Structure formats: structure tokens, C-alpha cells
């Protein structure tokens, strides 16, 4: 390795070590995935990046079966998802490494999941037909 790279590597390792909490979260990742039960579910594709103002972003996910339009509200460390679905009666579960929440889409197509934490999140969507859909993980 180039001596300058070695010097940089030593400097970063000393000055900016990986926090223990980050290692702990990494070690816990397989458990998070197993607990979410999302493996094998069909993907809801995310359309573009968040849109909106700081602390409040809007996201859209879609497949041929369902569309979700979600407003992410962040107040300090608490996050809520307020959204619309094209399929009333759908159950939407927000999976997180710690915590999470569930909501059922009402007759007008709206749903609200609050009390979530900042951090990685994945939505698992069960349609009234029983079909299981999921979003990819993203950070709220």
C-alpha cells in the first residue's frame, strides 16, 4: 500500500473509530431481517427521492397491484407515516430494527403509522387478497 494511504488509514482508525453501537447494530442485522419476515415478498418500487421541506418528505411506491403515497413527518426523534393507498383494507406494517407499527388503510384510502423511530425502515403490505408486498429498506 502507498505510504500516504497507510498514514491516512492509521490516522482515520485513531481519530474516527467505528462506534460500538454501529458494530452492535451491524451484528444484529440478520435478526432484523428475519424478524421483519419480508424475504420472498414482491417489491414495491420507490419512485425518486423524497420531496418536500426539511423534516417532512414525500415518497411514492408502486407495483401493478398497489400504489402508496407517503408523507414522512419527523419531529425530533419521532417519525410518523401518513399516507394514501389505492387499495382500502390493506394492512401496512412498518418494520424497524427496534419498534415499528401497523395500520389498516381505511375506506377513503388513508392510513397513519406514528411513534416510529429515526432509522432504517421497511414497509410490508398485505393486500385484502392476501398478497404480500414490501418496500426496500430506507432511512427515515
Amino acid at each position, binding site marked *: *500500500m*502507498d505510504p*500516504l*494511504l497507510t*498514514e*491516512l*488509514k492509521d*490516522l*482515520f*482508525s485513531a*481519530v*474516527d473509530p*467505528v*462506534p460500538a*453501537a*454501529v*458494530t452492535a*447494530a*451491524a*451484528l444484529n*442485522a*440478520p435478526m*432484523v*431481517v428475519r424478524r421483519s419476515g*419480508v*424475504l420472498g415478498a414482491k417489491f414495491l418500487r420507490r419512485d*425518486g*427521492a*423524497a*420531496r*418536500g*421541506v*426539511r*423534516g*417532512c*418528505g414525500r415518497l411514492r411506491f408502486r407495483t401493478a397491484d398497489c400504489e402508496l403515497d407517503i408523507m414522512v413527518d419527523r419531529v425530533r426523534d419521532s417519525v410518523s407515516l401518513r399516507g394514501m393507498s389505492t387499495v382500502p383494507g390493506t394492512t401496512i406494517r412498518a418494520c424497524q*430494527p427496534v419498534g415499528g407499527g401497523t395500520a389498516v388503510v381505511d375506506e377513503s384510502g388513508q392510513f397513519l403509522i406514528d411513534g416510529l423511530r*429515526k*432509522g*432504517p425502515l421497511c414497509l410490508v403490505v398485505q393486500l385484502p387478497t392476501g398478497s404480500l408486498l414490501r418496500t*426496500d*429498506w*430506507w*432511512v427515515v
Partner: protein
Amino acid sequence: MKDPKLIQCALQRAAQGDEKAWAELVAWYERLLWSVARGYRLCQDDVEEVCQLTWIRLSERLGQIREPAKLAGWLATVARREAMRLAMDRNAVPVEDTQLESLVAEPVEPPEFLHSDRNRQLWLHFHALSERCQHVLRLLMYSPEASYADMGRSMGLPVGSVGPTKTRCLRTLARKLTKAEVI
């Protein structure tokens, strides 16, 4: 440099639920992910979340990685894209993927406890390099086994440009240090 067979073995064992194998993968690559995510305008909490998200994504895809030698490049790519996306989301600016390239790290003040002038200059001049230079040097520091093809993929560069980019970035850093009369 890690042997691809060793990486493949760890991936296979981790996919079967072997916690020790997963811990090996974390030990090998956590420094790389941390370093890559650190290169963006994110607070410490968000850097931590980018790392966690990247590990979750790997955990979901353990059984799908066919080329273990490319794991470092794959992880760096995921961490980099998520860090950029999160930086954009935090500012909630509408963007297209093509615009993500324009997000560059801002110079970072050296930590107060960094007393050595040499180390302070090294820190300052590294963070004054372009986002691309920082990324390639971080990859070289923490995953020297990554091929130029993987590095190119993770940076959106043609494979033939990686070597010259690396050389140019190292020369730029050395020149800046020389100007600061610390070499």
C-alpha cells in the same frame, strides 16, 4: 488482502445463519462502510443509520452474492448511494439519480484533540479533496482487495479511469501536503 474463498465461505455460512461468520464479515468491512458514509454531509446519527441499512441489505442478499471478490465494492456502492440519498432526503430536494454525483463532501475541521501538525494537515487536505478522490482513497485504504472494476462500478467510473484517478488523487494530496511543508 482477503482471500475471495475466505469471503465466499463466510458468506455461505452467514446465509445459513452462522452468527460467527456474519461477525467476521462485519469485522472485515465495518471500517470501510463507516469511512464511506462519513464522506457525506450527514450527522453522526445518519452515518450510523447508513451503516446499519447497508448491513441489513447485505443480510437480505447473502445467498445472492455470486462473486465474493466484489463484496467490498458492492458494500461501498450501497453505502455511498444510501448516504447520498439520505443527504438528499434530509434536505428534501427533488433530485434525479444523475444529480447525486454532484453532492460533494464539505471540508471537515480536524478534531480538536488532533495535536500533531502533520496529522491535522493530512486530515484537512484529505477532506478538501473532491468527493470522488475521497471515495477512491477510502476504498483503497479499507478494501485493497477490491478490483479496479469494482471500484469503478461503485464510483460510476470506467474501469480504465480508476488507476489514473487513484494516482491523481494521491499526487494531489501529496502536493498539498508539500505546499503546507509537512512532507
